[in-house]
């Protein structure tokens, strides 16, 4: 099975382990990820902050290149890239004259035929059915699934999951044998692209997120966005300083969580690359992959408490 793949810049640099884990996971399920040839940066926050045409043209080129290769589905694991590509696709679809203008700027034919999938949509479409049978090492931890902004908003365009209290990642974590906790900061902003230019803001926003997760006894925070990851992981010293306490729980990508559950080793998944060391406590491996019934009871008790 071949699926188009747009890694985006961060997965070539700061979020190298995200690409490593996605690729490794795909391999386990016999999916070949075909990188879009000669892809460029989507322009991220910078482009739409400063110039609208540019913010449309850069993503449009990526999709046009994919179209030229006959790719129908593009997996875009980076939530920021996913968001930009989806919005541009939507805007160009809604405004044909704009679409024509952008096509002339990028000097490529653009029809908008490719399907943009985020990492969870990709897993749901290609992996979920076969996931539970492959789980050999249940990911038996209390996980706070953090969706951030870009995966679910704006709902009118992305139409992915519920915009308040989304569940799709929680479901995956549960299928991997984990316990997805109910918490309040699932879709609060981490500070996004302000990481370098407004580190204090990021420390406050990300700090509040980490604080809520830890207060609710999460052992790990699961993300699907390199930007969220870098803010929660790399900015940990600033976060701890802001909170005036030491939080040392790791931040894992959803692909890493699933990778661990299907038995991939830490190195393959790039766990060693995180700035906050991944020291998950060793738990005895349970028999049947997912013991659903008792889990459910634990959950409801906590809700009612």
């Amino acid at each position, binding site marked *: 099975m071949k699926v188009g793949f747009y890694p985006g*810049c*961060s997965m*070539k*640099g*700061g*979020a*190298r382990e995200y690409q490593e884990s996605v690729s490794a996971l795909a391999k386990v399920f016999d999916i070949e990820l075909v990188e879009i040839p*000669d*892809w*460029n*940066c989507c*322009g*991220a*926050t*910078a*482009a*739409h*902050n*400063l*110039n*609208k*045409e*540019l913010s449309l*043209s*850069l993503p449009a*080129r990526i999709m046009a290149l994919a179209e030229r290769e006959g790719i129908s589905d593009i997996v875009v694991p980076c939530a920021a890239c996913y968001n930009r590509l989806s919005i541009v696709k939507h805007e160009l679809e809604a405004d044909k004259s704009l679409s024509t203008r952008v096509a*002339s*700027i*990028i*000097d490529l034919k653009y029809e908008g035929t490719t399907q943009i999938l985020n990492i969870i949509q990709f897993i749901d479409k290609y992996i979920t059915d076969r996931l539970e049978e492959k789980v050999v090492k249940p990911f038996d931890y209390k996980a706070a699934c953090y969706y951030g*902004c870009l995966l679910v*908003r*704006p*709902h*009118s365009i992305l139409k992915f999951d519920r*915009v*308040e209290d989304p569940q799709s990642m929680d479901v995956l974590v549960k299928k991997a044998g984990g316990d997805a906790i109910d918490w309040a900061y699932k*879709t*609060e*902003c981490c*500070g*996004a*692209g*302000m990481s*370098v*230019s*407004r*580190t204090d*803001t990021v420390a406050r*926003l990300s700090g509040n997120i980490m604080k809520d997760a830890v207060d609710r006894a999460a052992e790990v925070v699961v993300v699907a966005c390199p930007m969220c990851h870098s803010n929660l992981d*790399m900015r940990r*010293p600033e976060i701890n300083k802001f909170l005036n306490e030491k939080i040392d729980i790791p931040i894992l990508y959803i692909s890493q969580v699933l990778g661990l559950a299907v038995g991939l080793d830490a190195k393959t998944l790039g766990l*060693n*690359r*995180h*700035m906050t060391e991944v020291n998950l406590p060793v738990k005895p491996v349970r028999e049947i992959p997912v013991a659903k019934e008792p889990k459910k009871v634990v959950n409801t008790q906590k809700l009612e408490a």
Partner: protein
Amino acid sequence: MSASHEHIHPLTLNDEIRRDTGVIINKCYQCGKCSAGCPVATEMEYPPSLVMRMLQTEDPLHVEKLLKSMTIWLCVSCEMCLTRCPMEIDIPSLMDYMRQKSYRAKKTNPQAKKIIAFHKSFLDSINYTGRLYEMGLIVDYKMRTGAMMQDVAIAPKMFVKGKLNPVPEFIKGRKKIAAIFNKIQDKKEGKL
């Protein structure tokens, strides 16, 4: 009837905003749900609902204040406001619009210098290589802002973890990317 009406009167700022972003400023009934949910409202001089109110006045003084404010640069485009707005007003697009307007008119807040510098370094990186070259971005950013010592401590660790590429990746079509930049109107006018 209404068609001729539009021709006679010059466009107001709010007409312009409506034309360029689709946002109808007067739809806002000041419920404040945007400000209530905004993660950075506490840092802004004007929380989002106040921004809407200031624009509703169409008073040039207020508009000027906004263009020169830090508020527009502090918005992180998290879209929480839009998600919960009962009137579905696209405040993030409006913020983009105000930033672009402020930037083009050279009215940006001095404190926003670092944020804009980061965006510019980011775009320059794309312009030259086709992709984002993180190390180059940081160096370029430091040159622009003079914040030489910022984040120096984590760089070596990132390097060890394989998170920093010492050499940039150039895409084959980087000339095409440069061509895209050149075709953008603002670039031609020297405003980007």
